[in-house]
């Protein structure tokens, strides 16, 4: 158990920015990001029993975060009281250049359908079509077709 707790803590700290990025792209405000982030951690913790460290961690983290963002009932009351995230910046409101850039990306991606958001995010992270397919559950060819369509959609924005 102790080993599992240490592994969980390490995974969360190592992949916090990935988890936050996914939650950010599926949220409309900071409050929703916090809800999704916490829910993702809950799902990660619940799934720790079946976790094998030798597996590709990055892909798995994406899977949990995306599954959570896609399946969380947003209106539902949370299971546990929300603990605020330790953030010095508010990517939805701050006026500095970095936050503006993040918002620009958020604005583009958030206009896409949920699954398309997932695909384009994974593609922007530099994942291969096979890896994207493994996360989303479609073939690499299907990823290529979808990505082509998404790119066309993005260009029109």
């Amino acid at each position: 158990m102790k080993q599992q707790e240490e592994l969980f803590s390490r995974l969360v700290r190592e992949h916090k920015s990935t988890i936050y990025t996914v939650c950010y792209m599926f949220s409309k405000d900071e409050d929703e990001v916090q809800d999704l982030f916490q829910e993702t951690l809950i799902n990660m913790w619940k799934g720790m029993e079946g976790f094998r460290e030798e597996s590709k961690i990055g892909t798995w983290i994406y899977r949990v975060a995306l599954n959570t963002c896609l399946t969380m009932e947003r209106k539902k009351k949370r299971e546990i009281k929300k603990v605020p995230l330790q953030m010095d910046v508010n990517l939805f409101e701050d006026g500095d250049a970095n936050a503006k850039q993040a918002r620009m990306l958020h604005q583009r991606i958030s206009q896409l359908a949920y699954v398309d958001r997932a695909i384009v995010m994974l593609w922007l992270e530099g994942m291969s079509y096979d890896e994207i397919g493994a996360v989303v559950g479609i073939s690499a060819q299907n990823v290529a077709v979808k990505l082509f369509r998404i790119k066309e959609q993005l260009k029109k924005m």
Partner: protein
Amino acid sequence: MEEQYFEEMRQQMAALKGQLDKQEIVSDHLIRKIMKMRTKDIKSTKNMGIFAAIIGFIMFPLNSIAHSWSWAFTIATGAMLLFCVIATIYIHRPVEKLNYMTSDLATVARVMAHFKKQYDNWLHYVTPALIIPWLGWACYEFAWKNCPEGLNPLWMTLPIIIGAAIGGAIGYYYHCKAVNAAKDILEQIEEQ
């Protein structure tokens, strides 16, 4: 031009991650709180079914000894409740077994669609097939067999019908809650 557009998006993504890497984001308090959680999922529908079954198994034999229900009716009711609990567990199992660490989005969508279909089938076919004969039998046991002299048995069926209506409304509320949750999830995955 096209490549430049997506390159810009890539840079924005890298900048975002870079900015987030500098943030603490997760406190020890949050991690501890998450780890304290037991895997007590929100299984209100399943819990409701189990609760109803326990109540049934306790109440019906007591009622049969103390009052007017026959043993045959008690056994049939117990069997029906047991069947309902087993069916509820069977329907909920794939959803509860969904592992967020291993299931891809397509699997989640498939499991949710199956769950919703089974719930709908249960409401449309199994519920009427079980409840209508059971209600008829309950009316016979309660109203006709034990009707005090001079009283119309139809008046005696009123409490059963009112009870059934209340029970039905509660059951329908939980049914809608489970189906709507699955529907919302499906819509989010399959939208647009």
